[in-house]
């Protein structure tokens, strides 16, 4: 991984995500406390923190997999509220990759990739399949196109999940612990795919503990704890000169192992 490749976004790039004063509760438990965050187009952000810190919930609030109770979320100029039209428009902009892949097990790899383009984007089947094959090639999995997800390894499944999200031509990609459910030897192939995506200038928000990935491609690393953003900084500063004690403790724990 070439660390110099990480910083290519122009400083004046426009804002694509704006979060202001975001609060969310699960019952009485407050998972997100007054989160504010601004992301510029092409920016690559890694979010880390102990489990239960609200990092997954934060990115799930961006495409309404979770509903927030107060605060503002604006994605690509569209305000996220109860309007189904807005939710639909925002979901059209955002691709998501999950910890457990969530491929559709009853559909082949190719069908997984063409389902949404055909039914949501109303693309002709042939166009959708051509696009799907292009992205499957990109994640190096074309020879498995007609297999079912259950026949693939975890790493292959996650790469298919990335291709499936890319087929919808999203402007933003969310990664929710994409390598946590993988066997160690498969982590690399998924990370390589993500790095190549990052090099192409995709706006990315990744919840991950892969600090090597953060060092290689992140423009900004965010540390969350107890529902708050505790610290955010470019990786070279984040890893060596973290200001908060909590961040340093967390880094000690995960970097020592």
């Amino acid at each position, binding site marked *: 991984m070439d660390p110099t490749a990480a910083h290519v976004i122009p400083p004046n790039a426009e804002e694509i995500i704006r979060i202001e004063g975001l609060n969310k509760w699960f019952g009485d438990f407050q998972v997100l406390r007054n989160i504010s965050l601004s992301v510029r187009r092409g920016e690559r952000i890694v979010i880390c923190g102990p489990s239960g810190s609200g990092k997954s919930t934060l990115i799930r609030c961006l*495409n*309404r*997999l979770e509903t927030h109770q107060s605060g503002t979320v604006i994605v690509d100029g569209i305000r996220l509220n109860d309007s189904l039209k807005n939710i*639909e428009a925002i*979901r*059209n902009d*955002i*691709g*998501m990759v*999950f910890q*457990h*892949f*969530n*491929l*559709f*097990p*009853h559909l082949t790899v190719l069908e997984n990739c063409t*389902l*949404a383009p055909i*039914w*949501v984007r109303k693309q002709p089947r042939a166009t959708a399949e051509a696009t799907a094959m292009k992205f499957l090639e990109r994640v190096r999995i074309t020879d498995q196109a007609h297999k*079912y*997800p*259950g*026949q693939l390894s975890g790493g292959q499944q996650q790469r298919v999940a990335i291709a*499936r*999200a890319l087929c*919808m031509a999203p402007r933003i990609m969310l990664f929710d612990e994409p390598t946590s459910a993988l066997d160690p030897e498969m982590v690399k192939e998924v990370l390589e795919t993500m790095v190549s995506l990052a090099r192409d200038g995709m706006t990315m928000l990744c919840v991950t503990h892969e600090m090597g990935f953060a060092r290689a491609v992140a423009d900004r690393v965010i540390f969350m704890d107890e529902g708050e953003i505790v610290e955010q900084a470019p990786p070279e500063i984040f890893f060596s000169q973290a200001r908060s004690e909590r961040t340093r403790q967390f880094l000690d724990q995960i970097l020592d192992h």
Partner: protein
Amino acid sequence: MHPPATAHRPFAARSLDWLRENLFSTPANALITLITLALLLWAGSSFVSWAVLHAVWGRADVATCNALFGQGACWAVIADKWRHMLFGIYPQGEQWRSALAVVIFCAIIVLSAMRAFWHVWRLLALWLSGSLLCAWLLAGGFALTPVPTALWGGLPITLMLAVFGTLFAFPLGILLALGRRSALPIVRAASIVYIELVRGVPLITVLFMASIMFALFLPEGVSFDKLLRAQVAIVLFNAAYIAEIVRAGLQALPRGQYEAADALGLGYWQTQLLVILPQALKITIPAQVNSFIDNFKDTSLVIIVSIFDFLYAVRQAVISDLDWRHYFVEGYLFAMAVYWLFCYAMSHYSQWLEKHLSRDHRL
């Protein structure tokens, strides 16, 4: 490591081992085995002696049977009465129409069980043309003598009530299951009320309502065919059960499937039809077949609203004949055999279906 040696021993030796281990491991165990064996032999041999060895086979008159009454089965009653048993009070000269309808109906079912027909339009064409043909054969008109539904009976009635009773209940049941999980309070409440209300009462009462009470609510002069009313009652009744089975299937799916569909921007109906239901319905195949077999046998309850299904036709064929009326046991055994044949075929098909659809190698 070598595999266990038993795998290479001849079958007879392995069987002996199995017997020793499982049936004769202790003296008490051996005693129980012997007693059970003796009971089975005793019961089995007297049945075989009655049903096979001393039975009257083929066509024979009542006197032959009477001479052997109590010692041998009188299968002659089936040979004599089979038409009445299968087709009830349908006019004698027209019973070929009933028979043809049953054959066509079974053919539709077998064809739609085959992969080559699993396309919406093919299935629709098959069922529409087949059902219309059967309806024409049974009801008459257009060159055939009309036969009112009050005279229909036997196997065609049982098959029709069971198959359409499930076919139409299925979409309704799916809607109810989705309704019960809906985020809209009114839809959810309505589905729950319907399901709990219908599941809480016996089929007999629903049939009774459809047959007698329903007519009271209609304006004078308006009436629906009694058979149709019973059919609708069975559909509505089965829908509640199917809904609960489908709901179990929906709940078995991981939340990630819904989330992935949401994240891709699929709408509610797209998610249900393309992602959720194909998986949920597959999981529920064993339960659905179970419920269909139940429903198939439950159709025999329609007799309480004077619809003459197969079981009643069998009973009536024997009982109503003064000569043969003592031989209802043989009649019921015949009915059992026919019911068993259908149910066993269904069960077998469901196993094939499960295996066939498990291509996704779900982890």
